[in-house]
């Protein structure tokens, strides 16, 4: 017991490695400050390099997979290009997929930055689509107003669905990640129930025709049209909505008091609490906002020409899952989600063209997962290597007789 205390006493005045004392003769603070300013953030360039290597490895592995199974990687890339970027029609389809992906990803950024990990976007997308469809089919409101109401209803519903998880956490301490995950499956069955039940949303029977498990098509007034007039390219209003959302969230996170509090909450909840941030309210709000974005994505899936404008069980098309992956690749930076969502849109719409080359379209899912790993792992690996090195330095310092010298007295 005494020995331990002795050790602690020796350690406590000075923690080598944490607070390095300037060696004699290098007491040049302004020079150090300049150096610190010029150096990219801790491990910045190593992370960048590791990411590039990671992406290359991901692409190499994917090519290897194609080659091993008898396909041609080059032909696959060509097919992906054909389906996503080769002409205006392909671009139109890419952008149609990118819009809901971007919406989900922007929402995911908000909750992730507040330190709350929401993985229930798929369910929130579905609930958004469900309530959007319900409002759109039930309300007799003319034209564009109906569209606005549908979009609002969908985002409110998605937000409320996510807020339920936050509520369960607050009143009963239910783990948010787990509850958002479980609520995906509840949302899926709710939608399945709604489109299988005639008094809810199942399509109305016309004569003796067989009714499918889907809703009636939404009225024309509730559909998201194209923005602007281009010869062949169609830019859907949903994309505009998503871009505005991304910019708004980026500005709000970087420039407002709310964004500052949110980031502080994410980085250090305890410090945020002591600084007067209402931790539960702000965290719950971030979760609700991320759900609202996902719900809005559900409305875009419902009302834009990406689908059939009917509510179906499969309407979410894994957009919720993919959107979260987009946010992971973008490392939770709202503006970076724009190019990443575009890339994922390219993969999605190009994937349909793969079949012609004999390569299964599931290749796209493999590429996506590997890409996410390539972007998620490097910062952590670099941080760990730096920590290890610091640890080695600390250990070496500890082996030397503790220099309780002039420096410590300062």
């Amino acid at each position: 017991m005494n020995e331990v205390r002795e050790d602690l006493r020796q350690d406590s005045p000075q923690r080598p490695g944490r607070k390095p004392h300037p060696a004699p003769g290098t007491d040049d603070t302004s020079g150090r400050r300049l150096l610190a300013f010029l150096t990219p953030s801790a491990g910045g360039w190593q992370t960048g390099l590791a990411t590039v290597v990671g992406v290359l490895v991901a692409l190499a592995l994917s090519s290897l997979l194609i080659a091993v199974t008898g396909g041609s990687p080059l032909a696959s890339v060509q097919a992906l290009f054909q389906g996503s970027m080769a002409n205006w029609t392909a671009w139109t389809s890419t952008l149609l997929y990118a819009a809901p992906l971007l919406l989900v990803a922007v929402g995911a950024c908000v909750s992730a930055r507040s330190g709350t990990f929401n993985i229930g976007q798929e369910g929130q997308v579905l609930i958004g689509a469900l309530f959007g469809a319900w409002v759109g089919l039930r309300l007799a409101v003319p034209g564009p107003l109906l569209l606005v109401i549908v979009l609002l209803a969908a985002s409110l519903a998605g937000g409320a669905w996510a807020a339920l998880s936050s509520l369960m956490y607050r009143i009963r301490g239910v783990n948010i990640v787990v509850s958002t995950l479980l609520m995906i499956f509840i949302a899926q069955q709710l939608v399945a129930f709604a489109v299988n039940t005639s008094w809810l949303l199942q399509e109305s029977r016309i004569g003796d025709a067989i009714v499918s498990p889907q809703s009636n098509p939404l009225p024309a007034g509730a559909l998201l049209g194209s923005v602007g007039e281009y010869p062949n390219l169609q830019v859907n209003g949903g994309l505009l909505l998503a871009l505005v959302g991304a910019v708004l969230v980026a500005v709000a996170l970087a420039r407002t008091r709310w964004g500052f509090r949110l980031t502080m909450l994410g980085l250090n909840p305890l410090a945020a609490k002591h600084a007067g941030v209402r931790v539960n309210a702000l965290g719950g709000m971030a979760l609700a906002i991320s759900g609202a974005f996902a719900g809005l994505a559900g409305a875009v899936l419902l009302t834009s020409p990406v689908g059939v404008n009917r509510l179906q069980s499969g309407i979410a098309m894994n957009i919720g899952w993919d959107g979260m992956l987009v946010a992971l690749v973008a490392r939770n930076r709202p503006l970076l989600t724009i190019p990443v969502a575009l890339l994922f849109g390219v993969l999605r719409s190009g994937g349909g063209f793969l079949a012609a080359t004999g390569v299964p379209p599931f290749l796209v899912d493999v590429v996506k997962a590997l890409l996410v790993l390539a972007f998620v792992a490097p910062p952590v690996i670099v941080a760990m290597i730096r920590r290890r090195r610091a640890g080695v330095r600390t250990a070496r310092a500890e082996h030397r007789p503790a220099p309780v010298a002039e420096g410590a007295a300062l």
Partner: protein
Amino acid sequence: MIAVDDISTILSSGIRLTIPLAFAACGEYLAERAGAMNISVEAMMLGAAFGSVATASATGSATTGLVAGVLIGLLIGFVHGNLSHRLEINTFVIGLVLNALVLGLTSYLITVSSFESHQVSQVSIPWLRDIPLIGHPLFVERWPVYLLIVLVPLTWWLVERSRWGLELRAVGEQPQAADVTGIRVNLRRRQALLWCGALAGLGGAYLAVGEVGSFNQNMTAGRGYIVIAAVIFGAWRLRRTLIGCALFGLADAMRLALPALGLTMNSQLLVVAPYLLALLAMLFFANQNREPRALGQPFERGST
């Protein structure tokens, strides 16, 4: 009216649907007691199902396939453990990525290849199988089912009675304190994930070379998530977890059997039951403090 035969049929189908869940749930239970929340159990089951069918087709032996399934589960557990409990990438992120990767990879591979069908042999226990109602469902099964008789008590003993399990639980409850006493927190979690991988792999392989005999795309269809729901429903106790598995397996069997029996019941309600029950269990049993306190939280020495 429902005949005795029908009940027996539902029961045996329920048991067959329960077995893969029960294998995987033993693994997931142990991992979660160590604080390692891995949602990659779905990837483990799916990957193992594919690997077992591919190996069985290549070697012509379903038992080899079963072993290959366990190895694939171990591999995924190893990858998950190293990425999230050595590199400390968020365990949920890794779980999601692994699920997506394995789903994509197996769907890809099954499209470009075809396999022969192999199934492990059936064991039929004399006399016991003649018991009315429960005899056939319980005592005429494919042989890996009876591994459960060993693995369930073994898992329980490992967690509740062995020194390793004591350390494992300490790691799940108070990683900082465990670290101070010299337990290697992340090592224990990686080991727990390996156990989880092996058992989830066995479950997935059993599903493929035991029940079905072949692999089809997204074969597990979210069973991994049901396993997680079962562990939560069981409030992180093995017995209740297994009861949960049986309940969810029976619900699934009911869903499949109802149309044949001419009964109309809400199939969505049966599908959603596991998740709903898990959520309700979390809501109502929250103050019993059964959840491992460090569940899903990464451990890094020096942080609080």
